[in-house]
C-alpha cells in the first residue's frame, strides 16, 4: 500500500451503490441487529461492539454497545481499513501496531487497545460495512470466537437481504393489487356498458319476433333471442364476480321474511321443472318467519344451486330444504340444502367445480349450457356471509349442496319496517295495459307474487274502458300498443278523464328521451323491460307513497315582499334577483360547512338564511334551517340533519325555478 491518507476501495462507486440498495443508513434501531451486536460482545468478552456501515463520508452505527454516538467521520475510523480486506482484521494490541499506535482513537478517544473487525460483504462481493469487537485491553481471539464472528457477519448480511426482499415483495404486492383492482373496475364498467346496448338488442329482437315472419326467419330470430339472453346471463355473472372481488359487494343486514323468500324461489323455479321431476321445498317447522340478513343474496344462491340441480337432473327429484340447527338468544343457525337425483359429480371434480369456467365435464357446457361462473359466485356469496359451501355427490346418484348461515333475530318492530314486500301497500288493484300475451303472463305472475290484484287490457282503448268502469289504485302502461298507445292513453286519462291515478310506464327498450316523454305526458314512473321485480315493486311503492302524500306544487308568497317594497316593482324584482343570487351560493356554503363538520359556520349560515326565507314566507324552509341550526348548536349532526339539508337543497332549487319564471 502506498500509505494513502484515506484508503478507498477500487470499486468505491459500486460499493456505495450496493450500500444504498439496502436503505439501511439512518434507519431506526432494529433488535435483530442489536441482538447480533450483543452476541459479538458476549462471545468475544469485550465492552465495545458494533455493526456499522461506511458511506462516502462517515461510519454510521446501525447498532452499538459502548460507543454512544450514531456516527463518526470516515477518515478517523478503523473500519475504513477493514473494508479494504476480504477477511477478518484482528489487532491484538494497537500499541504495537505501526499503523494505529499513534491514532487519536488509541491514544485518546475510545482508547482502543484491541480491535477485531470483519467486513460485511454483500452477496455480489462489496464490503459495505463491518461488524467489530473492541476492548481497552490487549487480547487475542481463539478460533471459536473468530468463527462465531464470521457466522454472525453472514447473518447480518442475510438480515439485510431479507429486508430488501421484503420491500421488493411489498412493492410487487402493491403493483399486483393495483392491477387486480384495475381489472375489476374495468370488468364492472365494461359489463355495465355492454348490458345497456344488449338490453336494446334483446328488446328489439322481442319486438321483431312479434312481427310477421316466415319459418326460417322465426328460427333465426329465436336463435338470436337465446344467444342474447345467454350473453346477458354471462355479463350479469361477470358483473357480480367483479363486484365481489373489488370488495364492492356488501352483505345486507335487513330484516326479511325467510319463509316467503324461500317460497318465492320455489315458485320462480317451479315453472321450469319438467314433469318427470318432483320439485320439493321442505321447511323446518321451527324455522323463524323473519330474520336479519341479506335476502337478495340468499335468493341468488338458492336460485343458482336449484337451477343447476334442475338442469342436471333428468328424472327423480330436486329438493330445497331448510333446517334450524341452533337457536341462541340473538341468532339462528340454519342449514340450507339443495339436493337432486341428477347425474352427480365424480369425486375428483368435487373441488374444481367451484372454480371459474370449470364444469364437471368438458362437454357439460355444450350439453347443459351455463357460464361456468355460477358456482364460483355461489361459493363467494356464501363465504361473504361467513360460511362455507359444501357438496356431497355420487355420479349417477345425485348431488347435495349445503351451507349453514347464521342470521340475527329480528324483533317485531323491524318486521314492520321490512323493505322488500308489497305487504304494507294493502291489496292494490292494478290495471295493466299491455298487448303482448307473454308479457301479460309474466307481469301477472309477478303482481300475484307481490300480493296485488291485476286486470289486463290488450290496448289503451280497452284500458280506458276498464278504467271508467272500475276503481284502480294504479296503472302499468306499456308504450307500444295497437289502437291507442301508452302515450295517447295517458294523455286521454289525464286530459279527458281528469284522473290523477298513478301511471307507471313499462317499455322494452330505453330510447333516449323516451323517459322524458313519459313524464311529459303525465306518467309518474318508468320501468324498463326486461324489468327486475324489485325495480317494479320500488316504482309501485314510490308512486303509491307519492299518492298518499300528494306533493303540493310549491307556492311562493310574495305578499310580504310586496308590503316591504311599498308597491315598487323595481325594488321587488331587485330583491328577488338578490335572493336567487345569494340563496344558491349560501346553500352550497352550508353544505360545505356541514361536510367539514364546521358547526359554528353551519349555525351562523343557517341562522342568517332564515331571514331570507322569511321574505318569501317559506315557513317550512325556515323550519328546516331552525332544525339544522339547533343540531349545529348541539354540536352533533345526524342523518336527519343530512336529510333536512338535501331537502333544503331541492326545495331551494324549486323555489328559485318558480321565482325565475315570475
Amino acid at each position, binding site marked *: 500500500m502506498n500509505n494513502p491518507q484515506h484508503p478507498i476501495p477500487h470499486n468505491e462507486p459500486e460499493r456505495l451503490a450496493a450500500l444504498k440498495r439496502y436503505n439501511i443508513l439512518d434507519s431506526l434501531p432494529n433488535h435483530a441487529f442489536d441482538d447480533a451486536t450483543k452476541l459479538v460482545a458476549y462471545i468475544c468478552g469485550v465492552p465495545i461492539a458494533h455493526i456499522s456501515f461506511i458511506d462516502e463520508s462517515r461510519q454510521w452505527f446501525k447498532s452499538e454497545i459502548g460507543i454512544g454516538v450514531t456516527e463518526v467521520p470516515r477518515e478517523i475510523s478503523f473500519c475504513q481499513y477493514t473494508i479494504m480486506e476480504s477477511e477478518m482484521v484482528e489487532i491484538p494490541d494497537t500499541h504495537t501496531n505501526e499503523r494505529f499506535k499513534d491514532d487519536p482513537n488509541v491514544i485518546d478517544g475510545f482508547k482502543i487497545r484491541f480491535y477485531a473487525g470483519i467486513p460485511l460483504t454483500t452477496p455480489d462481493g462489496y464490503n459495505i460495512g463491518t461488524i467489530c469487537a473492541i476492548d481497552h485491553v490487549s487480547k487475542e481471539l481463539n478460533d471459536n470466537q473468530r468463527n462465531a464472528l464470521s457466522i454472525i457477519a453472514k447473518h447480518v448480511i442475510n438480515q439485510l437481504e431479507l429486508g430488501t426482499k421484503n420491500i421488493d415483495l411489498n412493492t410487487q404486492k402493491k403493483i399486483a393489487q393495483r392491477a387486480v383492482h384495475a381489472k375489476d373496475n374495468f370488468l364492472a364498467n365494461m359489463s355495465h356498458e355492454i348490458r345497456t346496448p344488449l338490453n336494446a338488442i334483446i328488446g328489439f329482437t322481442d319486438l321483431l319476433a312479434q312481427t310477421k315472419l316466415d319459418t326460417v326467419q322465426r328460427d333465426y330470430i329465436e336463435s338470436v333471442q337465446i344467444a342474447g339472453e345467454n350473453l346477458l346471463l354471462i355479463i350479469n355473472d361477470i358483473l357480480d364476480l367483479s363486484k365481489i372481488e373489488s370488495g364492492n359487494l356488501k352483505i345486507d343486514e335487513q330484516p326479511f321474511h325467510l319463509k316467503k323468500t324461500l317460497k318465492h324461489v320455489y315458485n320462480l323455479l317451479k315453472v321450469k321443472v319438467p314433469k318427470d321431476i318432483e320439485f320439493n321445498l321442505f321447511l323446518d317447522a321451527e324455522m323463524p318467519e323473519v330474520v336479519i340478513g341479506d335476502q337478495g343474496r340468499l335468493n341468488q344462491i338458492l336460485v343458482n344451486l336449484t337451477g343447476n340441480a334442475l338442469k342436471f337432473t333428468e328424472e327423480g327429484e330436486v329438493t330445497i330444504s331448510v333446517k334450524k340447527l341452533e337457536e341462541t338468544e340473538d341468532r339462528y343457525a340454519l342449514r340450507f340444502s339443495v339436493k337432486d337425483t341428477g347425474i352427480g359429480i365424480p369425486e375428483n371434480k368435487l373441488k374444481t367445480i367451484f372454480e371459474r369456467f370449470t364444469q364437471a365435464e368438458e362437454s357439460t357446457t355444450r350439453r347443459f349450457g351455463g357460464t361456468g361462473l355460477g358456482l364460483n359466485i355461489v361459493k363467494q356469496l356464501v363465504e361473504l356471509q361467513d360460511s362455507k359451501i359444501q357438496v356431497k355427490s355420487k355420479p349417477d346418484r345425485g348431488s347435495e349442496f349445503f351451507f349453514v348461515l347464521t342470521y340475527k333475530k329480528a324483533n317485531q318492530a323491524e318486521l314492520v319496517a321490512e323493505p322488500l314486500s308489497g305487504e304494507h301497500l294493502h291489496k292494490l288493484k292494478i290495471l295493466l295495459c299491455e298487448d303482448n300475451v307473454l308479457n301479460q303472463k309474466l307481469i301477472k305472475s309477478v303482481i300475484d307474487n307481490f300480493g296485488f290484484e291485476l286486470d289486463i287490457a290488450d290496448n289503451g282503448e280497452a284500458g280506458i274502458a276498464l278504467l271508467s268502469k272500475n276503481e284502480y289504485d294504479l296503472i302499468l302502461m306499456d308504450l307500444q300498443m295497437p289502437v291507442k298507445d301508452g302515450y295517447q292513453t295517458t294523455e286521454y286519462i289525464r286530459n279527458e278523464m281528469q284522473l290523477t291515478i298513478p301511471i307507471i310506464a313499462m317499455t322494452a327498450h330505453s330510447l333516449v328521451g323516451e323517459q322524458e316523454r313519459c313524464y311529459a305526458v303525465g306518467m309518474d314512473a318508468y320501468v324498463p323491460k326486461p324489468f327486475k321485480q324489485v325495480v317494479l315493486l320500488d316504482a309501485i311503492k314510490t308512486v303509491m307513497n307519492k299518492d298518499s302524500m300528494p306533493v303540493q306544487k310549491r307556492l311562493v308568497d310574495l305578499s*310580504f*315582499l310586496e*308590503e*316591504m*317594497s*311599498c308597491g*315598487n316593482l323595481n*325594488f321587488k324584482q*331587485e*330583491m328577488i334577483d*338578490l*335572493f336567487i343570487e*345569494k340563496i344558491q351560493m349560501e346553500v352550497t356554503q352550508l353544505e360545505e360547512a356541514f361536510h367539514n363538520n364546521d358547526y359554528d359556520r353551519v349555525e*351562523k349560515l343557517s*341562522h*342568517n*338564511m*332564515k*331571514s*331570507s326565507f*322569511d*321574505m318569501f*314566507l317559506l315557513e317550512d324552509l*325556515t323550519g328546516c334551517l*331552525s332544525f339544522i341550526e339547533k343540531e349545529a348548536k348541539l354540536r352533533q349532526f345526524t342523518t336527519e340533519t343530512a336529510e333536512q339539508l338535501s331537502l333544503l337543497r331541492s326545495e331551494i332549487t324549486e323555489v328559485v325555478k318558480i321565482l325565475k319564471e315570475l
Partner: protein
Amino acid sequence: MKIVLAEDNEILRKSLSFFLASKGFTVDQFSDGKEALNAIEANSYDLILTDINMPGISGMEITQYVRQSIGSDIPIIIFTSSGVEQTELDSFDIGANEFIAKPVSPAVLLVRINKLLNKRA
C-alpha cells in the same frame, strides 16, 4: 327621523331600509354590529333597530352598551328569529323597548316605531 338599522341578512336589511325610507325615515344601515355601534356613538339617532345575531357584536351587546356606557334612553327595537322565550326576557332586561320576532311584519314594525317615537316626543 333618523333610524339606525343593524341586520346582517342583506335582503332583509335592504327591504327594511327601503320600507322605512318609503315611510319617510332616514335609515343608516349596517350589516356588522360593531360598525352600527360606532355610528351610534358618532351620530345622533332617534331610534335603533337591531337584529341579535350579527358579525362584530350582537344586538344584545349594542343595547347593553347604549344603556350602560353611553347612558342613552334612545328607543331600541330588537328583532330576532331565535324562538327562545328567554331571549325576549333578556332583551327587555337589558333595556330594549320592543322585541319583535321574525319574520318582522312591516306594518307591525311601523306601528311600534311610531308608538315609541310619539311617546318620546
